[in-house]
């Protein structure tokens, strides 16, 4: 399983702060993003950043390991 996390404005648009997605070998960040943005287009409109296992990721071709934690995040507004 892949654990997908949402926060703040993205979580609000999705209506949930976490989803469990079935793992499949060869699954890339791009695939996950494409699947989820078809399901939740309004939420993914404001997604600016991605993280894999708690670290920034800009590489959509990155293959995900089973049990990865992935976050799709809106622009930060802390501070």
């Amino acid at each position, binding site marked *: 399983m892949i654990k997908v*996390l949402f926060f703040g404005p993205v979580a609000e648009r999705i209506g949930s702060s976490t989803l469990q997605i079935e793992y499949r070998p060869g699954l890339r960040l791009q695939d996950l993003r494409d699947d989820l943005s078809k399901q939740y287009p309004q939420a993914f409109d404001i997604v600016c950043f991605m993280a894999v296992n708690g670290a920034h990721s800009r590489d959509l071709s990155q293959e995900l390991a089973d049990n990865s934690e992935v*976050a799709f*995040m809106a622009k*930060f*507004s*802390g501070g």
Partner: protein
Amino acid sequence: MLEPVRIQTEDFSQDEEVTALLGSSKRMGGIGTFLGCARDFSEGREVSEISFDAYGSMALSEMNILRNEAIAKFGLLDARIVHRIGTVKGGDNIVFIAAGAEHRAPALDACRWMIDELKERVPIWKKEITPQGDSWVVPHP
């Protein structure tokens, strides 16, 4: 002793943070700090409270990376970063950055760099709660 990088719901004391910073070196001649606080007015609307959501574990690790980078980049003697989450009211403290160096220029430069970078890198989101309803803050570019 309080950790130099923290995310917490409780308030913090600037005096305690600065005392901890100063305690790390007797060679510290200058300390630059930035305190961000909740305004009761934003974009023309009255704001009664601000609430925060955060990717806690990542935010903490990004803040630690930021502190280490600032120490290396500006030759600091020490630095601290504290960010509150939960809900705060107008006038309340939100974020505190402190940079200590032998001289004032690197301390002030590093303080500014850290708050600018924190806003770019650290996964925390702010929601303004107003009498007209709530809204997530959209940062300006």
